[in-house]
């Protein structure tokens, strides 16, 4: 049974109108969306194949607003689905039909920039790029750079533990968050961490970052700022085979060079990007690498020379060094417009598996085989430095049953990633899309240990309730836990 069908089966229990009455007592009228047209704007996120109309949407403007909403949710046992900008590719912000969607986009103030502490305190609805823009002139930036960074919010980044091309050097969100303010399922306000390193006691921050809104609603974050490099430039290498490109990446890292980003594109992706962006990519190669270094001009030049020396063992048939900012932008232009470029050709499902680099060639061949068996075309775009694959499976959304088939094809690819020693998501999260695939990567006991954490923070399971964990397992777990006499936990 597909995700959509399962969602349709969700009970649309009679939600007391008094929920709306109580919400209108704590929020202004323009903070509550109830009309059909307004609600439709929140029925999906970037996983547009699934749409579910929420019960009500609220637009809090402060932590106190969120806490007030949470208290109402708790009083009536109504689920809450937190939402940033709705850019989740895994359906993390898609509501259930009986949910209050808590949209944080109005909480978009940068509260404090503290360059001495190299940190900034921001409301959760601030966009990722707005943080870097606010400190750019002072020579700082916020490092995690998901592709959607122009529009995605820090709340969503924290929920999904987002990353991006430059995470090879700077890590993902969890490495760059110092503290959070959070509203619990019961409406309490908690703070973890702050403008200092390594908080005391258990590492609750590590749980909250990446919890997909299931442990609390983050309303403020203290993020780490880093000093901007003097400069950054990429070079482009084209190879006649995937193996040569993959081996080249392994050799660069193995020889002790750590670029700030290494991106990989296969032939179909190169072709689509070139047709769309006219970035000057070679069309006669099977694989392309974009390798970026940071530093002063001479430092980057020296790194390029070393990388070219290493790459020469793998016979690159195309080499292009960016010597100016314009040339650098041209090289990145194609990669950054890749998803849009493929989208011009066809609907696609963007997968997000991670593999050990040593298995690259094997995995790419197998992906081609799997997609071929379903008669789907596929383009592969890849954060090669950290093994984060993005196979884009092209399909026809207008054909009945096609989405279910492409989901199945994607699941096989993710299973392949796990079999190769990798995982089912490197940066997009689990959401609705992959909750039933969690069993590929985790044993039942692994998931039970995670669900116990959920239960500790959210005893009534009202926060983004149908995400992350396989539904049947979650239901069994909750039934078993509630039937326990608490004997073990006292």
């Amino acid at each position, binding site marked *: 049974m597909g995700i959509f069908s399962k969602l349709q089966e969700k009970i649309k229990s009679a939600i007391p109108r008094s929920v709306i009455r109580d919400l209108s007592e704590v929020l202004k009228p323009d903070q509550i969306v109830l009309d059909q047209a307004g609600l439709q704007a929140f029925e999906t996120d970037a996983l547009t194949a699934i749409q579910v109309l929420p019960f009500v949407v609220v637009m809090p403007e402060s932590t106190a607003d969120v806490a007030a909403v949470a208290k109402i949710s708790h009083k009536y046992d109504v689920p809450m689905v937190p939402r940033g900008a709705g850019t989740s590719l895994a359906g993390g912000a898609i509501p259930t039909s009986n949910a209050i969607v808590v949209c944080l986009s109005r909480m978009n103030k940068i509260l404090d920039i*503290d*360059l*001495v*502490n190299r940190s900034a305190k921001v409301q959760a609805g601030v966009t990722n790029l707005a943080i870097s823009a606010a400190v750019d002139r002072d*020579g*700082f930036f916020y490092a995690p750079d998901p592709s959607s960074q122009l529009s995605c919010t820090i709340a969503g980044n924290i929920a999904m*533990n987002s*990353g991006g091309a430059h*995470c090879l050097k700077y890590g*993902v969100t*969890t490495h760059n968050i110092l503290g959070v303010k959070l509203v619990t399922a019961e409406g309490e306000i908690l703070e973890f961490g*702050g*403008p*200092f*390193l*390594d*908080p*005391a*006691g*258990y*590492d*609750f921050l*590590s*749980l909250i970052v990446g919890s997909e809104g299931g442990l609390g609603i983050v309303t403020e974050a203290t993020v780490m700022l880093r*000093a*901007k*490099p003097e400069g950054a430039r990429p070079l482009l290498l084209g190879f006649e085979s995937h193996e040569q490109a993959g081996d080249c990446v*392994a050799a660069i*890292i*193995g*020889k*002790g060079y*750590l670029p700030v980003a290494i991106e990989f594109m296969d032939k179909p992706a190169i072709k689509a990007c070139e047709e769309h962006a006219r970035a000057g990519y070679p069309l006669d190669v099977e694989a392309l690498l974009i390798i970026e270094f940071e530093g*002063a001009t*001479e*430092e980057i030049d*020296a790194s390029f020379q070393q990388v070219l020396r290493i790459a020469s063992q793998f016979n690159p048939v195309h080499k292009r060094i960016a010597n100016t900012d314009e040339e650098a932008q041209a090289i990145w232009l194609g990669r950054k417009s890749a998803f849009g470029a493929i989208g011009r050709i066809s609907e696609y499902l963007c997968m997000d598996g*991670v593999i*050990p*680099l*040593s298995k690259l060639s094997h995995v790419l061949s197998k992906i081609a085989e799997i997609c071929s068996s379903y008669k789907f075309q596929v383009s592969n775009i890849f954060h090669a430095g*950290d*093994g984060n694959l993005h196979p884009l499976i092209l399909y026809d959304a207008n054909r009945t049953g096609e989405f279910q088939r492409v989901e199945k094809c994607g699941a096989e690819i993710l299973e392949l990633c796990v079999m190769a020693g990798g*995982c089912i998501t*490197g*940066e997009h999260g*689990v959401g609705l899309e992959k909750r039933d695939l*969690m069993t590929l990567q*985790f044993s039942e*006991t*692994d998931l039970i*240990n*995670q669900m*116990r*954490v*959920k*239960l*500790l923070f959210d005893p009534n399971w009202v926060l983004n309730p149908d995400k*992350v964990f396989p539904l049947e397992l979650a239901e069994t777990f909750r039934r078993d836990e509630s039937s326990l006499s608490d004997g*073990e936990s006292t």
Partner: protein
Amino acid sequence: MQDMLTPLVNRDLKDMILDAKDKGTSLEILGHGTKRMIGRYSEKNVPLTMRRFSEVTLYEPSELVISARAGTPIVEIERELKGYGQHLPFEHLDFSKLFETEPGYGTIGSLFATNFSGSRRLLKGSARDHLIGVKGINGRGESFSSGGRVMKNVAGYDLAKLMANSWGTLAVMTEVTIKLLPTPPSECTLFLYGLEEDIALEALRTAIATPYEVSGAVHLNKTHAFPCLEGVTYVQDKAVTAIRLENTPKSLAYRSEKIRELLSAFGELFYIDEPESKLFWQNMRQLAFLANRDDAIWRVSTSPQRAFQSARQIKKLVDSQVSYDWGGGLLWISTRGVADMGSSDIRRIIAQAGGHATLIYPGVDATQPVSPFHPLDPAHMQLTKGLKSMFDPAGVLNPGRMYDGV
């Protein structure tokens, strides 16, 4: 002294945990015991050492990933990495000088269980940040895993990082997987001598805010500086402010010159090349500056902006020496002559500034019991107890090590 339990495989460990659970007893989880002096100790706990869980199970230099069983000696892992020009980038602390234990001991499991990161944490992150996968057994006797062997993994809740700094109270780690980094090809350090604390911290802040990737930024007072300067060319009987750079020799020449220009107003900068630079930072990592067995030792993580002010307040109230790491964000405080080791004043002042203070060693004057770990507020304590009860409901694993009832 109770007999030490020494499991060899997961089955043994699981049986020992379940046996303790059935009998209502509890276990003290140890690696080599190098950090046994830190935290609360209970004679009731039966010691269990993970030292026989010793093996590197996977090493992929081209993927910057290594996996090892939890009892693997750190030195063994470092030896393996050295051959491939890679390292554990967080510069974990070595307490052997402070606790007068055999140098070179310590297991990889205990490194992550305690999450003590050294000077490079400023630039490269903590031990926790590099822990990408964990296998373990919780207090219920359940084997579980989290994360994996790839460095980017956002599937499910990150229980791997939760294990860092949990001091073996939630689960016994049986295997860890670590993200590595290439060892920088060379390093140098710039020294400024005799700066007042507030001026020194400003110099450090200025250096860190540059694009030159400062990987160590400390200020040691005159007393603390002396032991760290052993074997270093430029020795002066003054406080030392040190700024480390790591890169290719050509880059170091360029970057150190830039920093020298920028900081020239703070005084004369002395360029310390390898091997003296390495020696200085090794002394830092080994806490050579604190190896006075009379003093109580505090490790304080706080807001760099409030660090100087906090230190000044503390020194007014407590006979103490203060040095700074992490560009001012980490205070090492040694106190003497106070029954509570300065606990009440230090913790009150740090709580106001934001951060927390851990008592690493009580010194010789201790007469009052002091919680080694920073007390938690009621809401955090409730969650902490809740988490403990989820993973270890019977309180089998290191009960009370961190907090009473946890």
